[in-house]
């Protein structure tokens, strides 16, 4: 059993199905532009990449530069997602809402606070996290996989990192979470988690891996 004095949540892919939805839209957009992609292919090749690396990886795969239309439509997709919301990972909202009010909790994500706060509002979780919503782009100099964002979040919660639990789904996030010295629960509950996701997390050294929030609840003895 894991004893948590605080819980720090990654966001995209842990609380929000944005990894799956984003890659589904990416696959559709690339297919529209003449470069046929399934959502599984997009998830396999592009998850975890951002900025110039993301663009360069796609261009390498399709063997051509991405047209301006790609960037315009990606921007539109992001604006629409923030306006209309994205569904939660199964069980995520219930799990957060069922946690004791006095248990310190935070979101620590590579996304912007604008994205995080917007979606927390859609999910009805704004009050659950209060001011403890932290962005690797805004609150620390070095984002994930450096452990700095988790250390910052734990510091803001006033809980030592070695008494904190971090819930992460990605390779980059779990690496940084392990490096912080916290107890890490690897979550393979999102639709984006293909076969082998739990094994990937274990191979990184994540001792506790859950495939649903019910399992997380059991690991934390909150059942």
């Amino acid at each position, binding site marked *: 059993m894991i004893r948590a004095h605080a819980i720090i949540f990654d966001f995209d892919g842990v609380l929000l199905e944005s990894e799956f939805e984003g890659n589904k839209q990416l696959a559709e957009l690339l297919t529209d532009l003449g470069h046929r992609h399934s959502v599984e292919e997009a998830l396999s090749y592009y998850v975890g990449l*951002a900025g110039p690396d993301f663009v360069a*990886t796609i261009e390498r795969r399709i063997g051509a530069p991405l047209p301006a239309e790609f960037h315009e439509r990606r921007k539109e997709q992001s604006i629409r997602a923030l306006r209309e919301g994205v569904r939660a990972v199964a069980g995520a909202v219930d799990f957060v809402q069922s946690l004791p009010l006095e248990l310190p909790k935070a979101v620590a994500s590579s996304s912007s606070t604008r994205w995080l706060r917007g979606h927390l509002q859609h999910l009805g979780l704004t009050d659950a996290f209060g001011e403890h919503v932290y962005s690797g782009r805004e609150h620390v100099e070095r984002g994930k996989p450096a452990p700095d964002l988790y250390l910052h979040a734990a510091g803001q919660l006033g809980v030592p990192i070695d008494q904190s639990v971090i819930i992460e789904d990605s390779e980059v996030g779990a690496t940084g979470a392990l490096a912080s010295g916290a107890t890490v629960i690897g979550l393979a509950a999102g639709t984006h988690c293909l076969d082998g996701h739990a094994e990937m997390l274990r191979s990184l*050294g994540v001792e506790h891996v859950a495939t649903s929030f019910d399992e997380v609840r059991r690991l934390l003895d909150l059942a």
Partner: protein
Amino acid sequence: MASAAERRQQILDNIARAAGLARRDPAEVRLIAVSKGRSVEEIEPLIDAGQQDFGESRVQEALAKWPQLQQRYPHLRLHGIGRLQSNKAGDAVELFDSIHSLDRSSLLDALVREAEKAQHFPSIYVQVNVGEEEQKGGCEIGEIGEIVAAVRSSPLPLAGLMAIPPLGVEASPYFALLAKLARRHDVSGLSIGMSGDYQAAVMLGATAVRVGTALFEDQ
């Protein structure tokens, strides 16, 4: 069974992938093949596959294998990665292009003396005992500043910091700690990560990974 070249390519691909995930340039990461305990016959296929950096722990063993290989392949770089006694400093500076285990001022003095004699100046990693283990080599965290400053004022180039985390526990917090210490002392090189954890090390800032088993044996 995979060939040495295939195993090496797999590791280079993994390094590139881990670097990409951390938004790093894979070219910043040097793969050092740890060849201690390996014969010349095991080493040569890796050289043929393009491997240029090799690491040896013991001076005696390296002396038996490398002078001939270095003559035949003058572009190779040999790294001394094991604990080093001062009385081996002469052989070490002649053999190695880089020494990863400087952990005390007296050893630096011996290396400088011998380097000036040989007119060969290997670059130096300061080894840090990040896990504060009694039996482990490496200087204490509190000594880094002094030793780094001593290397900087010596004729030996400072390559970075090196650490071997404690066995049997998660290595990542120690990698992150060493990266933080390197930033604090304005040092850019980080020699961390071995066969089991080099991908995490790359994500956390390694500029040199020391891989033996995964290069020489099928996993």
